[in-house]
């Protein structure tokens, strides 16, 4: 038998060695391992493609953290992932896989954008609140579809949420190419009212409004999960549906709420892109933020604060990938590959002891 990673902290008896024991905690080791494995697998892929891994990875890191501009871009890319990560996290904690955050995001964003563009004549702040309400309702309700299928008919939410992403993509595409199409070639809506366009609202130089909302949502989620009865019940349902039911918790009601909140968070991710980045809904605005949510939640170890860091990691991969795309012939999709590897490793904690055993055996 080999030692399991969980034995590490016990061995570190040194006083004040808190940092070392934290840094070597199994989950952190897992993340580091995932990055190393990603690096190795990525190098192989790059070599297979006939590129130079050193050039590639330095471009990746340059693009993510090389300058203040690239750091800001990393944050920009990370912010939507905070929301989609929280969306996936809430669902996970409630015992459901919501793989439909992408769909809920674009549905919410489109609904909010339409409210932002077509409702006129009310004061900006009220309009803004209204847009958010519409977004939350639309994203949340769209997520209620798989919840209803699950509760009423026992339909597995994994497949239904995946399929509903396609429904959302084509459905929004119809609306933005048809009834709500702005004049011109691009499939997009009219711009939202200038009063609610947050493109120029900065909380710090170069850091826009959406980061504030993201931090707020992390805090709220943390409070919800750890301190409230709903969080307690959601957790119970997620861990053991049967025991939760026996404890008098309405499993169905909790499931509906979980999906609604999850979809609403997805919607918020989308509407912030609309209000802050593009000023309107543009078809295909998301490079897959919703799909990444699951990975972000896992990298964040299903903890709201962890999600923020997970989002930062994936945001860095994205912005680094864009740099990579610009200066080499390697497409931005390379960072998608890395994300896939990271997910595989995070989902398989056994990898660490496997590699550890291997190394010992070869010595």
């Amino acid at each position: 038998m080999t030692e399991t990673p969980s034995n590490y902290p016990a061995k570190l008896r040194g006083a004040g060695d808190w940092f070392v024991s934290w840094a070597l905690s199994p989950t952190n080791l897992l993340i580091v391992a995932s990055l190393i494995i990603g690096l190795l697998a990525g190098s192989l892929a790059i070599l297979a493609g006939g590129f130079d891994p050193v050039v590639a990875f330095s471009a990746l890191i340059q693009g993510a953290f090389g300058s203040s501009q690239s750091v800001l871009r990393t944050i920009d890319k990370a912010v939507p992932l905070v929301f989609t990560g929280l969306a996936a996290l809430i669902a996970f904690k409630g015992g459901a896989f919501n793989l439909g955050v992408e769909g809920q995001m674009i549905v919410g964003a489109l609904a909010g954008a339409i409210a932002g563009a077509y409702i006129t004549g009310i004061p900006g702040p009220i309009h803004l609140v209204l847009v958010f309400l519409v977004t939350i309702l639309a994203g949340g309700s769209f997520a209620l579809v798989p919840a209803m299928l699950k509760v009423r008919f026992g339909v597995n939410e994994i497949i239904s949420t995946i399929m509903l992403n396609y429904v959302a993509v084509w459905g929004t595409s119809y609306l933005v190419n048809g009834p709500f199409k702005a004049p011109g070639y691009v499939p997009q809506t009219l711009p939202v009212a200038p009063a609610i366009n947050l493109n120029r609202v900065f909380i710090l130089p170069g850091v826009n409004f959406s980061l504030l909302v993201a931090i707020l949502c992390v805090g709220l989620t943390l409070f919800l999960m750890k301190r409230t009865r709903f969080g307690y019940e959601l957790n119970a349902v997620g861990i053991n549906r049967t025991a939760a039911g026996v404890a008098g918790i309405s499993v169905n009601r909790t499931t509906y709420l979980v999906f609604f909140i999850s979809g609403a968070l997805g919607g918020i991710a989308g509407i912030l892109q609309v209000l802050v980045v593009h000023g309107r809904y543009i078809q295909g605005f998301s490079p897959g933020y919703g799909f990444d949510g699951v990975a972000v939640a896992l990298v964040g170890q299903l903890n709201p604060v962890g999600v923020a860091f997970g989002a930062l990691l994936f945001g860095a991969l994205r912005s680094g990938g864009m740099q990579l795309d610009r200066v080499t012939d390697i497409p931005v999709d390379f960072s998608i590959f890395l994300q896939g590897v990271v997910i595989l490793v995070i989902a398989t904690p056994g990898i660490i002891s496997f590699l550890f055993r291997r190394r010992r055996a070869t010595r």
Partner: protein
Amino acid sequence: MQLDNSTLLLVAAILGATWRMATPIAFAAMGAAYSERTGVVNLGLEGMMLVGAMAAVVGSDKTGNPYIGLAAAFISAALIGVLFAFLVLKLKGDQVVVGIGINIMALGLTTVLLSAWYGNRGSSDLVTGIPAINLLGSTNNEAVKIIFSQSPLAYLLIGVVLLSWFIFYKSPFGFRLRAIGENPAAADAAGIRIVAIQFLCLALAGGLAGIGGAYLSLSQTSQFVRDMIGGRGFMGLSANIFGGWNPLGGFGASALFGFFMAIQMRLAGTRIPSQIVQMMPYLLTVLALIPATRKSRAPASLGVPYHPER
């Protein structure tokens, strides 16, 4: 009642298109059946199809022989299946999340390689494909010709379906295989080598998905296109459920989904907006899950990991 000739030809065209549309989904459904009957949820089928589609094109391109491409598709996707099995069965990874990871990795990898080998991020060069043949070539009946003008892979599918059904329900091996999905502890205690059978089935599932992907890239487009599977792997998973985890049922369900898609192609260019038409197969797949889940019975231990103490 006498059908006039043009109606007959229309029906034949729709049936032929149904078969064509159903084939990749059904290959995935067969893969799903082998996975889920041994108790493993395999969301990675979509990614395995994608890898198969790419390998098929590369193999055909390098050798000029599309059947070598087909073999490459089977082998490479089966290897991904083995990787999946290794992570899930040996290293106790989470089945669902590993499946998702496989899909994302496959998408990234195929696109990077596409751009490396073909200098294009959207699609590969055209390669020698596997054209349709007519098994009933001698007939004079136009309608029959239209229906049976199919890729050899579509005929292969029929063989795979029937053979799988025989294996599942008529062979001793199938009894053991299904016992694993029902109660792995009981199968283990009965002396069945469960992990070996699960590895075999997951490799086979990957290989079958790979053939499904190769069908798309060799028989339909003769090139690889980024992210070209478009959810057919997931549809295969649904078809397997809709078909009650039975290969014949899975084939039937795939045919139904294929029929939706064939109808969708007929509706293109009509007054119905194309996006709504595009949406229909996915929506109907979701709706099909409702009666499927109510009626059929999943393997009792589906998705429940079993790791013996040794």
